[in-house]
């Protein structure tokens, strides 16, 4: 059966080549497109993953775009029908992929500047795409600081990579948890407790932040207080999505669509949108 017409609703096949647990509920999945092509995505973009019979859902791409490898990664928390089905897929299974969709972090604007990456909870997943891109092109960028907040130590993901990065000394890595356990020796408190500790030159810094809805307001206020210009702050906003093509209406944020005008937004473009933050 060959498709005779192109439809933007029809996914392309991709194969699950690897999966590994990152925490109790979060799993890392690696895919390769069956057509042998590189996904050629940009940091911050997302794909729609289909498990036929169950449904389709949007997932941020967690890997940086890499010309030399066609493997791309997503990291997913099990919470609904599609994510649950995904968690049960054996390696080697095929899924459907659409995309990449959406806007990306404007890395060309970050060139020569410092970047402050603020990742709350699962927000680290898409932030990682940007971070790894910057690490692969390290010379182009100034100082990089990564702030990571999670609810409890058990919720931390990519711990090995993050610890290696912290030890490396090149990138400033600050972590915090809301609720510590007996073994936690690091910072305790919400992510806003980390900002004062970061080495940031406000005049020279771009901020990229992704986290749960409640986080944005507070971190934005702090950035303003630190003197970081609003047009240098980038957020990624998550919304329920269905078509990914700006037609179905689900992801509308006031006059914008999160799937086409976002998910990455410059803060000044959305600061007056009441539905955004």
């Amino acid at each position, binding site marked *: *059966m*060959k*498709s*005779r*017409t*192109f*439809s*933007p*609703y*029809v*996914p392309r*096949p991709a194969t699950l080549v690897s999966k590994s647990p990152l925490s109790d509920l979060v799993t890392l999945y690696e895919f390769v497109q069956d057509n042998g092509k590189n996904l050629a995505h940009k940091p911050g973009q997302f794909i729609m993953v*289909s498990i*036929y*019979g*169950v*449904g*389709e*859902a949007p997932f941020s791409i967690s890997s940086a775009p890499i010309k030399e490898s066609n493997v791309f990664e997503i990291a997913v928390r099990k*919470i*609904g029908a599609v*994510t649950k089905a995904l968690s049960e897929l054996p390696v080697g*299974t*095929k*899924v*459907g992929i659409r995309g990449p969709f959406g806007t990306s972090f404007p890395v060309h604007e970050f060139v020569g500047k410092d970047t402050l990456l603020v990742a709350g909870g699962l927000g680290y997943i898409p932030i990682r795409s940007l971070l790894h891109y910057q690490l692969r092109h390290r010379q182009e960028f100034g100082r990089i600081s990564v702030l990571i907040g999670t609810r409890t130590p058990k919720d931390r993901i990519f711990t090995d990579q993050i610890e290696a990065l912290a030890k490396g000394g090149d990138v400033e890595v600050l972590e915090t948890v809301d609720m510590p356990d007996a073994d936690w020796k690091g910072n305790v408190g919400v992510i806003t407790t980390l900002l004062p500790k970061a080495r940031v030159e406000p005049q020279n810094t771009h901020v990229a932040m992704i986290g*749960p*809805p409640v986080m944005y307001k507070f971190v934005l206020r702090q950035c303003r207080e630190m003197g970081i210009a609003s047009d240098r702050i980038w957020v990624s906003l*998550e*919304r*329920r999505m*269905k*078509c990914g*093509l*700006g*037609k*179905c*209406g*689900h992801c*509308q*944020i*006031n*006059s914008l669509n999160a799937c*086409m005008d976002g998910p990455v937004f410059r803060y000044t473009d959305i*600061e*007056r*949108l*009441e*539905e955004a933050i």
Partner: protein
Amino acid sequence: MYDAMIFSRLDLPRVIAAWSAGRAVYVPTTAGGNTTLAPFDPERGLSLDYGNTTLSPKAFLFPQTECLLRFATCGQDAALAVAEPQGTQKRLLFGIRPCDAAAFALLDAVFCQDAHSTDPSWVSRRERTILVGLGCNTPDAACFCTAMGSGPHHPRGLDILAADLGDEVLLTPVTDRGRALLAEAASIVPGIPARGERGGTALGRAATLRINAEAVMARSPFAGLTLEAVARRSQRTVHALGIWPAIAETCLNCGVCTFACPTCHCFDIQDETKGASGRRVRNWDTCMSWLFTAHASGHNPRPTKVERVRQRFMHKFKYMPMNLGGRPGCVGCGRCVRQCPVNIDIREVLRTLDMACRAAPPSGAPRAEADS
């Protein structure tokens, strides 16, 4: 090439029968107080005595349920999705009203935004559906198309505009396709080109009907509705107006407005399976539903009815004009006015919105307000 043509009213069913060659033709049909566009039945003939269809004709271009693709759930072909082939049936909708045609023109902008995301089903259906509209001689009390940039005899979106002159029908082609259609009809049924004195009389009668219809609407308590003030205010200002809770108070969140509306285009996508195969369908959806914006995590950016009601009106009167070069997202067909179970009148809302926008303080308000 033909100009407008005049046909005897008695010959109209023959014209439509002529158009039925190779096409499925739908005409307004009333049964039990309910008007729909139903297949033309030569036996039953054709009545031009109707207001508008109860539900909009958008289902002809944007079906309520539509298969997007099919797949197998197991075996070798699992994860190979095949696009559902587009239909090939040619259709002709006779008697749709100018407001509904204007809605199709509006939805073209939604479904065909750019080359990568053009909706193939919309394009296919649009291309094989000819629209012959009938101008309204007696607009309904709930109609307000003139305030929304359309009009009772407006040709936008139509291939042919028909005017019911009583004993005669004037058919005016709007597009090349309409001209070809007219030529088809004229080759089978005797028609008179609307030229010279004979034509002038008919054109004059049609113009009179149009002017009279527009005059009826101008006498409505809602004549003079305008989106001017809404357009001038920022969306933040409009969003923050204090009018929304009162407007939303009686709303049942039933979604009938979105269902009947010719410009509402939101949809849901679901997979259905039976045994080893399945299909992915899209169904009409409504922003009136709590589920519409609910995340899997349970978070909902529009958690209560006020947000959803505000969304509907702002989408039609603020966001769509912003994104579509000033065109309102409403065509004034009046269906929601007639069918809302709690009689929420969109014209009242628009008037309230207009007054509130005029009265709201200038947008250069102190920075502190903007920051909160």
